[in-house]
């Protein structure tokens, strides 16, 4: 089954420094029918105005992934990590038994746009950790590039869950096939442009698809497009 979730069905929080579109229940947005998709628990599409951000706050028992789309995000935590990431970088935090961190737009001029995803970990009480990696943005064209996976490597951040997150840019009407082991789930989020899944399901900018019981899909660009795909396990989380 392929379920489409158009961008305008997301819950949006907006104030003078933050615009956040929430794909799943988060904070004041609570819908008991929209809590998670497998281990994917949070998918927030955030824009933070220059000089603003989230002050020091705690997390626990979550694998937190930030994907920068535009601008620069500055991170600091109580593990001693600090750094600024931009487009071409991915940040993963294992909150585990507890981490305190802050996230701010590092620029006083330009907004920062990023996607923040939280996954349930495959194990509780993990030791908190932080990692950021850079991937080769030139390699994104017309192929699926893994950037987060339970099997880590130099340009792939490790995560404590049986999943892989891919990024891709389709040039024009190029096509990609994706196949996974049966019994898993696929989440697709179209960041820019327009794509079709299996010819019938069109995703415009910021639309998402939750796919179950279909382990092979074809993704076609209807124009230049940028999207992410997550290969997810099923089960209790």
């Amino acid at each position: 089954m392929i379920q489409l979730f158009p961008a305008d069905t997301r819950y949006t929080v907006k104030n003078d420094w933050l615009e956040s579109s929430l794909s799943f229940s988060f904070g004041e947005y609570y819908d008991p029918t929209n809590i998670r998709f497998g281990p994917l628990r949070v998918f927030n599409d955030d824009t933070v105005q220059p000089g603003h951000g989230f002050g020091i706050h705690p997390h626990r028992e979550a694998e937190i992934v930030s994907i920068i789309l535009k601008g620069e995000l500055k991170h600091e935590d109580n593990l001693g990590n600090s750094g600024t990431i931009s487009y071409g970088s991915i940040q993963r935090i294992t909150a585990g038994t507890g981490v305190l961190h802050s996230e701010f737009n590092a620029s006083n001029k330009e907004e920062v746009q990023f996607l923040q995803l939280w996954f349930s970990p495959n194990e509780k009480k993990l030791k908190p950790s932080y990692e950021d990696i850079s991937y080769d943005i030139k390699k994104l064209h017309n192929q699926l590039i893994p950037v987060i996976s339970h099997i880590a490597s130099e340009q792939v951040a490790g995560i404590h869950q049986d999943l892989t997150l891919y990024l891709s840019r389709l040039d024009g009407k190029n096509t990609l096939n994706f196949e996974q082991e049966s019994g898993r789930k696929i989440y697709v989020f179209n960041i820019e442009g327009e794509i079709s899944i299996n010819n019938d399901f069109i995703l415009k900018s910021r639309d998402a698809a939750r796919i179950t019981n279909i382990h092979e899909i074809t993704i076609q660009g209807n124009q230049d497009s940028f999207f992410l795909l997550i290969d997810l396990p099923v089960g209790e989380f």
Partner: protein
Amino acid sequence: MLMIRHSIGSRLLCQTNIYNIEQQDDCWLISVSVDEETASKVLDFQDEINIFEVKENEKTWFYSSEAQINFQHNNKKLVILADHKTVYPT
């Protein structure tokens, strides 16, 4: 002031000045006077509850990793046995 929040996005479930925190070995017994409706909201998310004691220049973050949260109906007290405590500046 004590605040009880959902850990997924920090939704506020309870805010009160009527509470007590008592250290018991490596844990902290937190007792909060609440009505049944508030207790029910907290218990609905008992695996994902953060508790914050808020003072002028610092916050103290507690949680119960094993969700040891109970509501005593007779005296309307929510009793949380926290096994984690972190103090941080605000």
